[in-house]
């Protein structure tokens, strides 16, 4: 096999992977989003069969319509769910950044022999199932939970706080779950920064704080963008956390999707919701990719 052929094979593997496990399922969902519900297996119409022949296929294609998308615009539930998801994801990302930046900064400034341990501590929660960790928060946040007991023992509050089944619990859950995804890219950006840059800034007349804002912060921007995207994108579509920690009025698109798919068995509308969610997320993903490419470009030159 020639060198060129081997190179193409190497390039083809990840693209083939994406084609099979991402693009094909997406097109299936995309197609279903134009179908109608039907009480059958599968629960939608039309169903394309290999044995149909060209004429039947054309006939079935004509049955596809935009009805489901129109339905999404008619019922304000969906619009509100999207909006609420974006809001929750945005606030969670901001909180994760506010907590994660000082954490990553402290890690990057720690003595070099401590850093691997600190990085491991950040990754450590992944050793336990995500679902179990979210369940554990129920035990902490519920009315008779650890947090309320602790605060009452301290005497800060007389009556237990209602945190579980509110948006606050959802914020806590998302920030907790996605914090490592914020910390790690920030740490990577801060850790490789040359300490002498800060000294040079101080030498040229900056206080430590001014040196941080003029040097450290702009140089950590790629890390900030990467961290925010890694938190924001999965948070928008999050289902487990709002379902377990959120209240009945916590509106998130992941939950709406679940209800459409499994409770209402309305696969076509659920597919339309999923397709629209993807379109909404494409914008931040493109921004993320742009920054990644730019950082890589600056490094290789």
């Amino acid at each position, binding site marked *: 096999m020639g060198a060129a052929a081997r190179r193409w094979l190497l390039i083809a593997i990840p693209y083939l992977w994406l084609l099979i496990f991402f693009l094909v399922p997406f097109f299936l969902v995309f197609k279903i989003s134009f179908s109608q519900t039907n009480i059958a297996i599968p629960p939608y119409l039309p169903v394309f069969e290999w044995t149909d022949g060209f004429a039947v296929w054309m006939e079935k294609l004509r049955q596809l319509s935009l009805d489901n998308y129109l339905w999404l615009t008619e019922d304000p539930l969906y619009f509100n769910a999207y909006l609420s998801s974006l809001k929750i994801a945005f606030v969670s990302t901001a909180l994760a950044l506010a907590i994660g930046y000082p954490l990553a900064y402290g890690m990057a400034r720690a003595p070099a022999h401590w850093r691997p341990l600190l990085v491991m501590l950040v990754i450590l929660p992944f050793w336990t199932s995500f679902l179990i960790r979210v369940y554990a928060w129920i035990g902490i946040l519920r009315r008779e939970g650890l947090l309320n007991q602790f605060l009452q023992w301290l005497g800060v509050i007389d009556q237990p706080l209602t945190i579980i089944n509110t948006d606050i619990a959802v914020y806590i859950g998302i920030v907790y779950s996605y914090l490592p995804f914020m910390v790690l890219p920030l740490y990577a950006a801060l850790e490789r920064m*040359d300490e*002498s*840059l800060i*000294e*040079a*800034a*101080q*030498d*040229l*007349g*900056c*206080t430590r704080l*001014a040196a941080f804002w003029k*040097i450290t912060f*702009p*140089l950590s921007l790629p890390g900030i963008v990467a961290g925010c995207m890694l938190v924001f994108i999965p948070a928008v579509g999050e289902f487990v956390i709002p379902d377990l920690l959120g209240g009945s009025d916590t509106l998130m698109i992941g939950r709406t999707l679940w209800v459409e798919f499994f409770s209402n068995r309305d696969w076509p509308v659920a597919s339309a919701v999923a397709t629209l969610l993807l379109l909404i997320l494409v914008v931040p993903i493109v921004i993320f990719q742009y920054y990644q490419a730019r950082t890589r470009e*600056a490094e290789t*030159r």
Partner: protein
Amino acid sequence: MRSLGNIRRSFAPWSDANAKAMISIRNVTKRFGDFTAVDNLSLDIYEREFFALLGASGCGKSTLLRMLAGFETPNEGAILLDGVDLTGVPPYRRPLNMMFQSYALFPHMTVADNVGFGLKQEKMAKPAIAERVAQMLKLVKMSEFAGRKPHQLSGGQRQRVALARALAKQPKVLLLDEPLGALDKKLREETQFELTDLQYDLGLTFVVVTHDQEEAMTMADRIAVMDAGQIRQVATPAEVYEAPNSRFVADFIGSINLFDGEVTRSDAALTELQSPEGFALRMVDGQSRGIGSDLTLGLRPEKIAVTHTKPNSGVNAVEGEVWDLAYLGDMSIFHVKLDSGKIIKASVVNASRSGSEVFTYHDRVWLSFAEDAGVVLER
């Protein structure tokens, strides 16, 4: 003091009793845990001086420079600038600027923004900043690169930008940490002279840290040879080379042959040693030494003559066998093994294209040197 070397300096405030030091380092000690990086060190540096701190890595030279810049605080002692104690003054308020070994150029800013950074912190007006930046870039011959980012520059160009940035605020003193360390040999040699010219033209005080003795000798007015947190000798390059005050300095600067011996005769003019190898060494010393005391004669390779025949005078001459030789173009290096087994290094300048005397391995040769060629070192 006799004049040493062949360069006479008209600038020598350190030998003027009335001259006031610009930087005064007084009994400064800096410890990191159990390690003493700088040990009770005192030093005066004068205005317009090009001063070099020379030493091997870990000798404390960089720590001393960082204390001048304000990045480290002395555990004991004080550093004075024009009579003002700098202790407790943060780096951003010190009228000194530093050029970093890594250059520490801000990667997200253009060359012009890097150079103007310090001026912007001073809240200088924009047109004035632009003017000064242009002036600085012209000084270091980097005007056409003003819009580039640091990663688009070569190592030598970055060095120039770092220099321009450090000079832009017109500091009283410029501190340079291994300023030429990252450059290749040819560029380093060119830049050495450019730096000294620049320092002279601007009338600034430079304090440079280096491990490269050639660099220190080329550029500096005075050199402080450092070892284990202390200064072993502070003197002009010629003094450090021709009149080292100790075996350490003699050995550290350049290469040298050391002959141990016992004083057999000594007066104000001449001192004679009997070496254990069995020959007599006679040299001009300038002071009377005690008969029977142990001394060392230090002799630089280039001060030894190599001949096939025994020199006429017969004084300060010793016979040996050519053990190794190397032709370097401008000179040739001989390693001559004495009958005692001691190896002596000698270098001969190749003044004519065809050597008047030709040597090869295992030739019997005579090594000889003048009575004022060596330096007497106490053991």
